[in-house]
């Protein structure tokens, strides 16, 4: 296909603004799929994606429209997957910016629009859901035009649900989005913008051809990794894999590499010919670093090998997932995992539980800290248990948080952000009714209970998004929880000094409720260093006997004792204290960690 007949584009939108429905409609209108073949939301193929209505992995599908080849590269909408979005956008020349006619611009709309602008994409603004009774297409079109610097008349008004205006969208893609640039005659260069793992055929690379062409059986080299392989199959998605003989400059498609080790082909690498290949790689991506960390432990310690295997398999399709083995005296063997954000964490956890049938205990999440000791050396700490008890200073990650709310909630947001050590940046009226607030906040404050508070205080009307902007020094302390004088590694926290007492107190109270009485008094303490900030005592049991025991009931009493013994076996021994797994669950689980 000639370059000027190709258009590569993405759809960016806030969650639930209709991106997947529009993608479905495009497949239908272009007759890529017959109606009978249509499944709802074809592009979101993972079960979890379909259920939650969100996109996690970038996908690419090719459609034909009036003699042109259009490649739709699907992108995740959520902030946690910003890196996936930017990768996808780098493979495009334009983007549809889709906004719900009833809801207007939301926080993710802004984030994604800026991302598209940064990538120099041509933005086609589209107002969706104009068929809704509460839709206000004109007002939303004005907001949108303002945002991207367009004439409101040029904002498309459609209903992906009914199909109204979808053909016009396709026309606009052809007319407004520039064709890809590239040199068909140069040595081939293709950007790997994503990959997946096929258990029979190995790594499948999703590529955007920039220069030249690849043929099936082509000997290919990944320029950064140095890996060589033969292209077992080339093709494109329609939306299932459709093999072709060649992939040409400007096109989007896939390469089946046969590689069995995902680490041998990194996303962002450039593919070229093994012989007479290009000398300059395409600009890659910057490595994404996990921002949120949590310990994952099997509820039943016998499941540790299953958890390890499951993480290995997940990692094949999710390069951003980070994990390393961790041992906790309280929880046994598990993994410290790094995630791109809270949603990413939730998704990984759900996939592990659902697809791998594991019962997991997830510790309260924390952020990465940079800790500097007296001698000036710095380390990055991903777990409170690794935090040195003595240090010179600590830095924590900060975010720029964008919140859009109806104007009556401005005070609420300010109050919430002030409670969370937020710094006001600026505020802007998007319309008479809706206000955008920008704050700088420590990421740690978002990780702890922020979403729930935001949602309940604004009755669900707030939309929220953030970007990590860097590290700043914080007045942070490590709070340890001690049971009968022994620190419990899994329960250590890093918190702001001002919040230490409240968090320590809450944990101590909770543990006192959850830990059964023992054969001796058990002090439960929260301490900063050697200073105890909260203390409770679990009073010793005064009696634990089987009252009667004669010849007739020896067997029954023995069985009672065996049951008691089994109950004890399920407990974790922390020093001399027996703590039921449920107590840790209650204290550590996200849901249990509420104020």
């Amino acid at each position, binding site marked *: 296909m000639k370059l000027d007949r190709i258009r590569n584009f993405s759809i960016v939108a806030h969650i639930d603004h209709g991106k997947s429905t529009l993608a479905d409609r495009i497949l239908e209108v272009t007759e890529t799929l017959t109606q009978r073949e249509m499944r709802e939301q074809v592009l979101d193929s993972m079960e979890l994606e379909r259920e939650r209505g969100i996109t996690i992995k970038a996908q690419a599908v090719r459609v034909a429209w009036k003699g042109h080849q259009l490649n739709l590269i699907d992108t995740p909408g959520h902030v946690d997957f910003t890196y996936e979005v930017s990768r996808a956008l780098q493979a495009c020349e334009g983007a549809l910016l889709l906004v719900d006619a009833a809801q207007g611009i939301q926080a993710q709309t802004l984030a994604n629009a800026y991302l598209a602008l940064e990538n120099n994409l041509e933005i086609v603004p589209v107002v969706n859901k104009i068929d809704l009774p509460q839709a206000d297409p004109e007002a939303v079109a004005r907001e949108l035009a303002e945002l991207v610097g367009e004439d409101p008349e040029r904002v498309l008004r459609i209903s992906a649900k009914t199909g109204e205006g979808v053909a016009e969208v396709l026309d606009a893609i052809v007319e407004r989005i520039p064709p890809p640039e590239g040199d068909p005659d140069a040595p081939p260069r293709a950007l790997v913008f994503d990959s997946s793992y096929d258990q029979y055929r190995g790594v499948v690379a999703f590529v955007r051809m920039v220069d030249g062409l690849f043929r099936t059986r082509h000997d290919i080299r990944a320029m950064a990794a140095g890996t060589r392989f033969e292209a077992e199959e080339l093709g494109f998605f329609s939306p299932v894999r459709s093999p072709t003989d060649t992939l040409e400059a400007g096109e989007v498609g896939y390469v089946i590499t046969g590689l069995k080790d995902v680490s041998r082909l990194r996303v962002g690498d450039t593919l070229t010919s093994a012989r007479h290949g290009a000398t300059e790689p395409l600009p890659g991506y910057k490595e994404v670093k996990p921002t949120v960390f949590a310990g994952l432990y099997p509820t039943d310690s016998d499941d540790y090998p299953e958890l390890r295997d499951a993480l290995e398999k997940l990692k094949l399709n999710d390069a951003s997932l980070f994990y390393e083995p961790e041992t906790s005296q309280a929880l046994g063997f598990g993994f410290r995992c790094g995630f791109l954000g809270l949603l990413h964490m939730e998704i990984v956890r759900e996939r592990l539980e659902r697809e791998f049938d594991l019962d997991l205990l997830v510790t309260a999440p924390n952020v990465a800290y940079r800790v500097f000791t007296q001698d000036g050396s710095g380390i990055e700490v991903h777990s409170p248990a690794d935090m040195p008890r003595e240090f010179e200073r600590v830095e924590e990650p900060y975010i720029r948080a964008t919140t859009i709310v109806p104007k009556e909630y401005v005070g609420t947001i300010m109050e919430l952000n002030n409670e969370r050590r937020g710094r006001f940046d600026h505020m802007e009226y998007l319309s008479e009714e809706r206000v955008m607030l920008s704050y700088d906040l420590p990421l740690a404050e978002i990780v702890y209970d922020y979403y729930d508070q935001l949602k309940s205080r604004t009755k669900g009307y707030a939309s929220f998004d953030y970007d990590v902007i860097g590290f700043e020094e914080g007045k942070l302390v490590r709070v340890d929880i001690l049971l009968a004088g022994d620190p419990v590694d899994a329960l250590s926290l890093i918190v702001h000094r001002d919040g230490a007492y409240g968090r320590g107190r809450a944990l101590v109270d909770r543990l006192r409720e959850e830990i059964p009485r023992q054969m001796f008094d058990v002090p439960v303490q929260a301490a900063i260093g050697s200073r105890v900030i909260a203390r409770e005592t679990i009073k010793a049991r005064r009696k634990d006997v089987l009252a009667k025991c004669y010849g*007739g009931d*020896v067997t029954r009493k023995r069985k009672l004792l065996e049951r008691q013994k089994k109950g004890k076996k399920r407990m974790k021994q922390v020093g001399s204290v027996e703590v039921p797994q449920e107590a840790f669950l209650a204290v550590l689980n996200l849901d249990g960690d509420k104020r």
Partner: protein
Amino acid sequence: MSAAGVRHLYVHLPFCASRCGYCDFVTLVGRRDEHGRHVDAVLAELDAERGLLAKQVETVFIGGGTPTFTEPSELRRLLASLPAAEEVTVEANPETVTPELAALLRAEGVTRVSLGAQSFDRRLLDVLDRRGGAEDVRRAYYHLRDASFDNISLDLIYGIPGQEPADLERDLGEALALRPEHLSCYELEAKPGTRFTHAHGEELERQAGAMEGFFQLVVDTLTDAGYRWYETANFCRDGRRSRHNLAYWLGYDYLGVGIGAVSTVDGLRWRNLPALPRYLAALERRERPPREFEPLAASTQTQERLMLGLRLDEPVPYADVESAVDLDALTRLEGLRLVERRGEGLVLTRRGRFLGGGVTADLLAEIPANNYS
């Protein structure tokens, strides 16, 4: 098989005048016309197992039910047919003890009577569905003394719904005033799902906190009065321990006859099924009654030896139970002063005895999931 034979015999007489709400023993109400048939059957079973018994039996225990509710002539016939023993105990309900009954028991070789007093408080006795009252207990007690019984035990129950610490103190005082040789004090066990628990569960829940102290109150009061706390729930003076029950706690073999009775002989435990008609029918055909069998692996026997032995105030010989002991737990529990080694044996400390269940569960080495076959 212990070469010398079994030296401890239990006889179960299930009949009662009425059923008490909290009771979970094998009991049958009324049926006076069946008492004779039942005594025949018990004697037939004893006859069938006679070969297991030693020439000289040490203890006989006749429990129930209410053995003294049995028709006096049938009771006499039974007692006359039992082997003679150094200790022969009969359980009795206070209201069944008349001068005549006391004399009958004495004449037929009974040496010890265990009187089911439970409480001296009318209100609490009503909660337990007990017919007799404090006066019945005292009357029965003196009838037995008049018949020159010098070994009487009183059963008390504490933790009764509605019972306050002061009520328990009063009950203990009343019992001590009689100066019995022996006292058994049990906490009321409200089994989930029973009529009793249904009726009193909420009250029991409410007083759970206060009741924790009851056990200690019992032990303190009785030991202060000079009684020896020789087993978790049993107290005696002048060395008058229940020799029959000691046999259970020391792991000796015993033969039990009658419905629901359990025997343990040479590593085999069996229990007669509790249905009376099938029991009677089998023995009338001169067959053994329907039973459940439980072979005890050597390891299980050792575990039981530890579990039962630790209920006593005298050490369990360590060599007898070593293989059942978790050494790490032992060290930890010694550190907590709940268990101590005394001489060549293991014994719970005073505080350890209050926590005997948990301590024993800790002390037991890993129990194999199924070691019965």
